[in-house]
Structures are given as structure tokens and as C-alpha cells.
């Protein structure tokens, strides 16, 4: 019984420690952002060369065109890579690592050409890759894994071990680092993958689903780390995730891939800003008549609760007059009307819709 209580206490302590760590990190971000805001602006302006330049890149697997003339330029900084399954995200990541070569087109990643042997070697020294899913070197402890991977990245043995401990400290893996990785929790394995990606301090990080399989606390911690790397540490990173809120929380820019092409790319605030304006309207009275009037006015809408509707406005401006007119015509009384914040999800879906229309019309 006392052992069980001790275990509970330890778990609670660990959770508390994680909370504290995440809070510390949040505070660290704020401080770093406040202190370094001016300098950051200057640095960004000084090193604004794109971290990734792709020109008419084509990669086919048999009859499937995974990348179909992809042309793209990514600025330094944190960028989200979005797209449905089969959009070409994995192919793009492999290409970024120089694991595969393009059929045609050219690519420069972190200033390196991934199609040449020397370029690939330089590229892999400049990139930290955090793969999706479980990956571990069988039989090794955390510190041994990171240390060995550091050596493979080009660190001398003594530096490799020191650096392994530094990055394991950074991701918050304490005594566990001396245990075999096979017995670790998913959250710890995710943090280990981030640590090994950072061990050679690369300027560009490729993070593939970093929050995959994490509980809310672990997810918050991981997002805090990614945010810190992208903003306070000024790393360029490409975050590949299906969780749009994660991308929105950690990235400045986003690329939406669809069928091997860039359906949309740019800064998140700009993309979200171009998404359709939308308001949430709550009415008293004949809701059905109000909905009919909205249909008659050509305003797309959907139910948003009892007597409430989310209505898409015709333009990008938040002009609610057509909605109020429809309410007046249906004798419904508007009791509340408020703008609905456009989300990255809306921008993402819109970009995919437009890409689908473009493909059909071609």
C-alpha cells in the first residue's frame, strides 16, 4: 500500500515538475521575445535568404506523381507543412533530407544541393530530423542513443557526450536518460527524438508530427519546446502536422500541399486574414424563416446551437448588413451578432477546395 502511495506521489511530483517546466518555458519565451524583439527583427532582415527553394520539382513513384511541379520558397523561421494524406509531405521531407532525388527540377535546402553526394552530407549536418512514430536504437539508453547520433553527425566523442546531456536537459529528460529507451513512455520517446534532432545544433529542423500520441501535458510541453526553438532560439523549422492548432500555435508561416503542389503558402496571419469573413448570429423568433431568408440572400450558413447560426459573409470585410436585412425580412429579432475568428483550419480547407477546383478545371 505504501509503495502504491509512493508511486502516486512520485507521479504527482513528476506532473508538477512538468507543469513547472512548461510554465518556466512559457516565461522564458515571453522574456526572450520581449528582450530580443528588436534584435530579432534586425537578424531576420539580415538573414532573410530562403531556407528552402524548390523549383518545378517533380517526383514520381510509378504512375503516381508525388510532387507535381512543386515550386516553393520558404523564409527562415518556423513553418507549418500541411496537407491531406498523399499530398506529398513525406516525399518533400525525404527530399529535404536528400534520401531521395527529384526526377526533375531543382532544390536548395539550407543552401545545399541535395542531389549531389557532397551536398547531401552538408545538408544532413545542417538539418535535424525528428521522424514520426516510434524510433529507437535497439538496446541503448537515452544518453547513449543521442551520444552515438551526435558522433554520426560529426561531433568528436567528448563533445558528443557533453552535447547529448545538454539537449537531454533541454527537453526535460532527467534520470531516465540512463535507462534503456525501449521502456520509456511515448512522451519521453518524443522528447528523445527532439533531443537527437537538436544534438548537432542544426539551423533547420524537420519535425514530423512532434505531438503525436502525447497527453495534454506532454503536448503542451512539446509545443512550448517547438515554439522556443522557432522563436527564442531562432531556428528555422518545418513542422509537419495534422493538428492545425499545433501549427497555428508554433509557426509563423504555413505551406499547404495538395496533390504534389503548393495549394497555399505564406504567413499564417495573412492566410487566415484572407479566409472568408464569418459571423455568429443568435436570433429570437422564427429561426427557420431566418434560415430561408439567408438562403434567399445567397448567404452560406450552418447551425451553431439553439437559434444560432454561423453565417459566411459575401466578402472579406465584416459587413453584417445582409444578415441583418435577412433577419428583418423574416421578422426574427437579432439578440447577438459577433465576428467568428477565422481559423487556420478554414484557410486550410479553403486552399484545398481551391486546389481541387483548379485541378478539375485543368
Amino acid at each position: 500500500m505504501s509503495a502504491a502511495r509512493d508511486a502516486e506521489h512520485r507521479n504527482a511530483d513528476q506532473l508538477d515538475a512538468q507543469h513547472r517546466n512548461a510554465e518556466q518555458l512559457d516565461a522564458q519565451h515571453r522574456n526572450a521575445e520581449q528582450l530580443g524583439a528588436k534584435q530579432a527583427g534586425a537578424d531576420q532582415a539580415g538573414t532573410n535568404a530562403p531556407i528552402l527553394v524548390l523549383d518545378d520539382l517533380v517526383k514520381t513513384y510509378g504512375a503516381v506523381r508525388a510532387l507535381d511541379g512543386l515550386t516553393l520558397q520558404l523564409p527562415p523561421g518556423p513553418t507549418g507543412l500541411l496537407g491531406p494524406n498523399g499530398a506529398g509531405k513525406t516525399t518533400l521531407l525525404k527530399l529535404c533530407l536528400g534520401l531521395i532525388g527529384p526526377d526533375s527540377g531543382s532544390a536548395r535546402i539550407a543552401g545545399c544541393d541535395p542531389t549531389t553526394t557532397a551536398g547531401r552530407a552538408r545538408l544532413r549536418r545542417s538539418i535535424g530530423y525528428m521522424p514520426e512514430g516510434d524510433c529507437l536504437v535497439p538496446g541503448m539508453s537515452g544518453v547513449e542513443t543521442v551520444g552515438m547520433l551526435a558522433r554520426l553527425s560529426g561531433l568528436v566523442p567528448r563533445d558528443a557526450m557533453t552535447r547529448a546531456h545538454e539537449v537531454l536537459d533541454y527537453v526535460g529528460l532527467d534520470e531516465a536518460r540512463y535507462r534503456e529507451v525501449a521502456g520509456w513512455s511515448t512522451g519521453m520517446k518524443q522528447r528523445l527524438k527532439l533531443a537527437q534532432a537538436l544534438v548537432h545544433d542544426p539551423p533547420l529542423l524537420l519535425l514530423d508530427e512532434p505531438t503525436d500520441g502525447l497527453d495534454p501535458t506532454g503536448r503542451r510541453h512539446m509545443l512550448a519546446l517547438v515554439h522556443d526553438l522557432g522563436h527564442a532560439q531562432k531556428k528555422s523549422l518545418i513542422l509537419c502536422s495534422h493538428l492545425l492548432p499545433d501549427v497555428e500555435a508554433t509557426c509563423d508561416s504555413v505551406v499547404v500541399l495538395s496533390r504534389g503542389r503548393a495549394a497555399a503558402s505564406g504567413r499564417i496571419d495573412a492566410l487566415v486574414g484572407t479566409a472568408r469573413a464569418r459571423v455568429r448570429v443568435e436570433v429570437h423568433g422564427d429561426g427557420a424563416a431566418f434560415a430561408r431568408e439567408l438562403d434567399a440572400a445567397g448567404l452560406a450558413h450552418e447551425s451553431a446551437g439553439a437559434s444560432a447560426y454561423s453565417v459566411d459573409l459575401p466578402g472579406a470585410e465584416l459587413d453584417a448588413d445582409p444578415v441583418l436585412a435577412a433577419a428583418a425580412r423574416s421578422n426574427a429579432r437579432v439578440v447577438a451578432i459577433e465576428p467568428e475568428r477565422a481559423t487556420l483550419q478554414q484557410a486550410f480547407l479553403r486552399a484545398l477546395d481551391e486546389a481541387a477546383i483548379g485541378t478539375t478545371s485543368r
Partner: protein
Amino acid sequence: MKAEANLEVYRPFTGTLRENPRSAIALWKGGLRVAFRRRLALMLLLAPPAIAAVIFSFVVYTKYALEQGVTPGALGGESVIGKMAGTMVKDLASEALAARKLIVDFHLAMSGFSILLVAWYGAGLIADDRRNGAHLLLFARPLSRTSYVLGRFLTVATFGALGAIVPTLLVCTVAALASPDWSFLRYEGSVVVKTILFGAAWVTSISTFVLAVSSLATRKAFALAGTFGVVFALGAIASLLAKIQREPAWRALSPGMSWARISNEVFAVSSRASRWDAEYAYLSVSVLFVLSCAVIAWRVRRMEAVA
């Protein structure tokens, strides 16, 4: 009190990255570290060669000691048990024709045993890397496929050498030291060279074969089963064909029999296995080696591309 003050502080790396890191060496050391952690398996697999090396060293020493006029009693001490042991060793040593024959027989026996070591430590190397996703981490580094294979090969070959070459060299050392006027080295010195060369070729061949099977398997158990399955199946087929066709050269189909034939040729030992042309044995072993290399190259290339 736990020191948490340093947590979550990112320290940029201020050192330099080597242009050509010794990746194969790092992988080799990592592989050995993992292997030496499994102490029970290590003890079970390395104890027999170690014990055999000690016994044979003593037998070889006895042989030379007897030649120099040492009495059996002196070998085992004055106690009853010591005298009995001395007599037993004397009998064993006098039955053997020569130190050379003793060493060659010992070397071939140890080479056979080393298959177990190589299979146990090599079967999981590539298969487990792929199953656990280690290749995703490894090939994201400036690690060439050649370095990867070399690193894995060195790991498995180390255990092969520990089983096949090191014990024989130990016995050879004892023979050299015990022989009067370094006669072992002067008259039988070629055994040492041949032991090293034959052992190296044998270890290279079986290590490559085991790695090839490992690269095809999805887990260590399957790779182990595959290794022994192929060896035994080829042995059975070769024996059957040799018997049916009344042509002993069919034995070349079996890697084990081919190596036995080559060992007879190299160490000039005649046995039932040496009644067929050794060229077939060399051809068979070469084909198996080339095939193994081709399979490894194909599978590792695929591993890198799907990483």
C-alpha cells in the same frame, strides 16, 4: 534536492562538426556496447571457446613439456588428483600427432562454433534497426550506406573473430612460447598465418551472410531461423544430390561443406571431405559472398530510401 534550474535552457553548440566523421567506428562501438550489456548470452556463447582455449593451450604446453623430459607427475603436482590429471594430459597430448594437427583441429572446431556467435549477435542488427525505426535516425545523419554496413559488419565480425580466431591465436602463442628454441614458429609458423587468413575469410563470409539474412528478415528471431534454415537446408540438399548423383562435387552447394573442403586445402589435411575438387568450394563460397553483398546493398538502399 533536485537541480531544476538548468532544465529547459538551450545551449547552442560552439564546437565544430567533423567533415568526415568515423561513422562506422561509432556504429561499431555502439553495437558492441549493446551486445556486451546482455551478459548471460555473452557468457554462454563466449565461455565454451574460452574454456576450450585454456584446455588446448594446456595440452599443447604439455606436449612440448613432455618432449623436453618433464614427467607427468610434475605436470599435475604431487597430489593424487594432480598426478591423475598429469597422466590424462600426457595421454591426450601423446595421442595427438603434432601440435600443428592439434591447432588446426581446434581452429576448425572453433570456427564451426563461431557460427552461433555470429548468428546470435548479427541476426538482429539490421532487422531490429528497421523494426525499431533506428534507420530513420541513422540515415538522417551524414552516414553513407557503406559506413552503415561497415559499422554493422564490424560489430558482427568482432564476435566471429572472438569465437574463431582469438582462441586459436592464444593456443598458437602458448605453442610458440612452450616450444624449444621457438621451433613451433620456425617449423609450423605458417599455421599462424593460415589461421588468421582462413579465420578472417570465414568470419567475413558468415558475417556477410548473416547480415544479408538479417536485412531480409523483419525481426531477429526470423533472421536466426533463416540463417540456420538456409545452412541446414543447403547441407541436406547438397548431401542428397551428392548421394543420388554419386558426384561428391554437389557438396559445394552447401556453404558448410565448401568451407570444410577449403580448410582441408588450406591446412593440407586429408579427410572424407577432400575427395572433390576444391575449385567448386571456392566458387560456391565466392558466389554466396557476392550474393550476400548484393542483398545487403539492395536492402540497405531500400532502407535509406524509405527512411
